[in-house]
C-alpha cells in the first residue's frame, strides 16, 4: 500500500486478524495480506479451493493488484451494500449459516479450514449470501478441532435456535452481543423442550457446560479430534441448523400472496404511479422504507434500481427474502429496520459496524416512503420537520405518500388516543418538507384519498 496517498483509510472493522486487513483507496476496498498471511493465501489459491468456491458463487472474487511497497494486495469485488446479521430475516441468517458450513466442508475436503465463522463475513450480493473474507482460510491440521466452532455457535446457531423457539424478537440480542449470543445465555433462554433436541443439547447446552467447566483452565488439554469426529460435528451442525424453522406456522409462509386486500386495479395503478415517479428521479439505489414484503421494491427494481427493502416487521422481511430466494431476484435486499430506532454505530469505538443511516446515506439516490408517514407522525409522534430532515439526509430524492386522517388506516391509529395532530394534513406536510425539499409533483393515488409526492432535496435548507 502506498501510504502517501491521501485517500487511503483503513477499514475500522478490520483489526482482528494478524494476517491482513482491509483498506479503502479511492473509494474502493482492498485487502492487504500481511507476511503472516501469505502462505495461507497461496494455499487457498493453489489448492483449487478458491476456484471451486468462486465458481459456485460462495466466495467473493478478487484480483491481485500491484503494490508499491512490494507487499501482497488483492482487490475484491465490491459488495453493493453492507448489511449486518441483526438486519437479516431468520432465513437470511440461516442461509448465511448453511453457507458457512458448506464452505467449511468444501475446505476440509481440500485440506483447508475456516479459521473463523463470523456472520459479519457473510454479505448478501445479488440476493445470495457470499463469504467476503478471503483470508478466513488456513491449512487443516490433522487431529485439530474446528477453531471457529464456538464462533459459529454464537453467531449463527444460538440466535437461530432462540428465534425458532422463542420468537423473532430475540434476534435483537445480536445488536447487544456483537460477537454472537453467549452460549450460557442461549442455554438459559431455550425452552425446556428445545434443550432436549439432540443438536441443540449438544452444540448449545453441553457446549455451554464445557465452556463453564474449562473457563479457568490455564493449559489447553491435549484434545485430539480426528477426521471422522470433525466431519460428524460438522454434519450435526448442518442438520441442526437446517432443521430449525422460522417461528410462525408454515402455511402462513406459503400462501401469503393470496392474502392481499388490495383492489387489484387500484394496486396496479399505484404501482404504475410509483414506477413513473421513481423513473423521474433516475435513481440507481432506492431505500424503500416501510417496504412490507416488497411489492413496490420490485417496482423500483423493474425500473433498474437496486433496492434496500426495509421493514420493521420480521414476518414481512422473511416473506420478502423467501421471494427473493425463490425467484432468484438480484436487485432487492430485504432488511429488518425499525426506522424509529435504526441500527446504530456499534462495536469498538462505535466504528466497527456503521449505522444504517451512514451506510444508506452513502449510496441511496431516492427514499421511497409509502404508507409510512402516519406510522411515524402519529404512532411515534414525530413532527413532519424531523421526518423531512432525516429523509433528506438519506437521499437527494423522495417519493412519499401522504395518508390523510380520513384514511381507514389512520382512523385505526387515532381510535384510542387523543388527536394532538392539528397539522397532520397535506398543508402541514408541505410546509414542513419545503424547508428541505422542492416539491416537484403531487399525484393523487387512485382509489384512495392519498397523495403521492415527488420531491427533490434543496441544496440549501430554508
Amino acid at each position, binding site marked *: 500500500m502506498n501510504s502517501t496517498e491521501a485517500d487511503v483509510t483503513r477499514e475500522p472493522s478490520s483489526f482482528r*486478524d494478524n494476517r491482513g486487513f482491509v483498506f479503502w483507496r479511492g473509494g474502493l476496498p482492498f485487502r492487504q495480506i500481511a507476511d503472516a498471511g501469505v502462505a495461507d493465501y497461496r494455499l487457498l489459491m493453489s489448492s483449487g479451493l478458491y476456484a471451486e468456491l468462486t465458481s*459456485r458463487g*460462495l466466495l467473493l472474487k478478487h484480483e491481485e493488484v500491484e503494490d508499491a511497497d512490494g507487499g501482497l494486495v488483492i482487490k475484491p469485488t465490491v459488495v453493493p451494500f453492507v448489511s449486518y446479521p441483526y438486519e437479516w430475516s431468520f432465513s437470511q441468517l440461516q442461509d448465511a449459516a448453511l*453457507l458457512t458450513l*458448506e464452505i467449511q*466442508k468444501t475446505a476440509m*475436503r481440500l485440506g483447508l*479450514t475456516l*479459521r*473463523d465463522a463470523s456472520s459479519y463475513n457473510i454479505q448478501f450480493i445479488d440476493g*445470495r449470501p*457470499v463469504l467476503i473474507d478471503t483470508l478466513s482460510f*488456513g491449512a487443516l*491440521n490433522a487431529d485439530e*478441532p*474446528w*477453531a*471457529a*466452532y*464456538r*464462533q459459529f*455457535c454464537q453467531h449463527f446457531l444460538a440466535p437461530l435456535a432462540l428465534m425458532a423457539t422463542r420468537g423473532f424478537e430475540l434476534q435483537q440480542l445480536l445488536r447487544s452481543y456483537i460477537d454472537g449470543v453467549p452460549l450460557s445465555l442461549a442455554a438459559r433462554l431455550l425452552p425446556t423442550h428445545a434443550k432436549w433436541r439432540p443438536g441443540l443439547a*449438544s*452444540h448449545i447446552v*453441553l*457446549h455451554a457446560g*464445557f465452556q*463453564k*467447566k*474449562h473457563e479457568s*483452565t490455564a493449559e*489447553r*488439554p491435549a*484434545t485430539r*479430534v*480426528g477426521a*471422522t*469426529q470433525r466431519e*460428524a*460435528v460438522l*454434519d*450435526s451442525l*448442518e442438520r441442526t441448523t*437446517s432443521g430449525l424453522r422460522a417461528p410462525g406456522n408454515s402455511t402462513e409462509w406459503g400462501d*401469503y*400472496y393470496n392474502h*392481499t386486500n*388490495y383492489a387489484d386495479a387500484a394496486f396496479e395503478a399505484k404501482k404504475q404511479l410509483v414506477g413513473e415517479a421513481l423513473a423521474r428521479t433516475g435513481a440507481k439505489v432506492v431505500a424503500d422504507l416501510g417496504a*412490507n414484503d416488497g*411489492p*413496490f421494491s*420490485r417496482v423500483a427494481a423493474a425500473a433498474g434500481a437496486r433496492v434496500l427493502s426495509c421493514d420493521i416487521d420480521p414476518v414481512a422481511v422473511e*416473506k420478502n427474502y*423467501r*421471494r427473493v*430466494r*425463490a*425467484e432468484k431476484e438480484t436487485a432487492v435486499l430485504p432488511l429488518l429496520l425499525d426506522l424509529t430506532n435504526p441500527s446504530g454505530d456499534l462495536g469498538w469505538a462505535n466504528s466497527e459496524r456503521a449505522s444504517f443511516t451512514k451506510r444508506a446515506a452513502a449510496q441511496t439516490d431516492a427514499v421511497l416512503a409509502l*404508507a409510512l408517514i402516519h406510522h411515524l407522525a402519529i404512532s411515534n409522534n414525530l413532527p413532519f420537520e424531523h421526518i423531512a430532515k432525516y429523509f433528506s439526509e438519506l437521499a437527494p430524492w423522495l417519493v412519499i405518500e401522504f395518508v390523510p386522517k380520513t384514511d381507514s*388506516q389512520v382512523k385505526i391509529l387515532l381510535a384510542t388516543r387523543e388527536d394532538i395532530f392539528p397539522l397532520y394534513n397535506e398543508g402541514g406536510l408541505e410546509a414542513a418538507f419545503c424547508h428541505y425539499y422542492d416539491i416537484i409533483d403531487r399525484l393523487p393515488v387512485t382509489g384512495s384519498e392519498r397523495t403521492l409526492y415527488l420531491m427533490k432535496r434543496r441544496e440549501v435548507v430554508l
Partner: protein
Amino acid sequence: MLHLAYIDPGTGSFVVQAVIGTVLGVSFTIRRQVSALFRKLTGKNKPVATDTAVKSDAGAPKAPVKSDKADGKVDE
C-alpha cells in the same frame, strides 16, 4: 498445532467437539457407508459425504416453502 486460531477457540469448545464427535462419529460413519453403498447399488455417483447436506449450489441452501407468483399485499 493451533496456529490457526487468531480468535479464541475456547478450551471448552475444543473439548466438547471431541465428545460430540466421538458420540456422533459412529452413527455418522454408518450413515455415510450406507449412503455410499446405496449410491453404488443405484449407480448414482453424487459426491455427497452425508445424506442431508446442503445442496451444492448453496446460494440458496434451503429450499423455499413455495414459489410465489402473485404480487403485493397490504401496505399497512
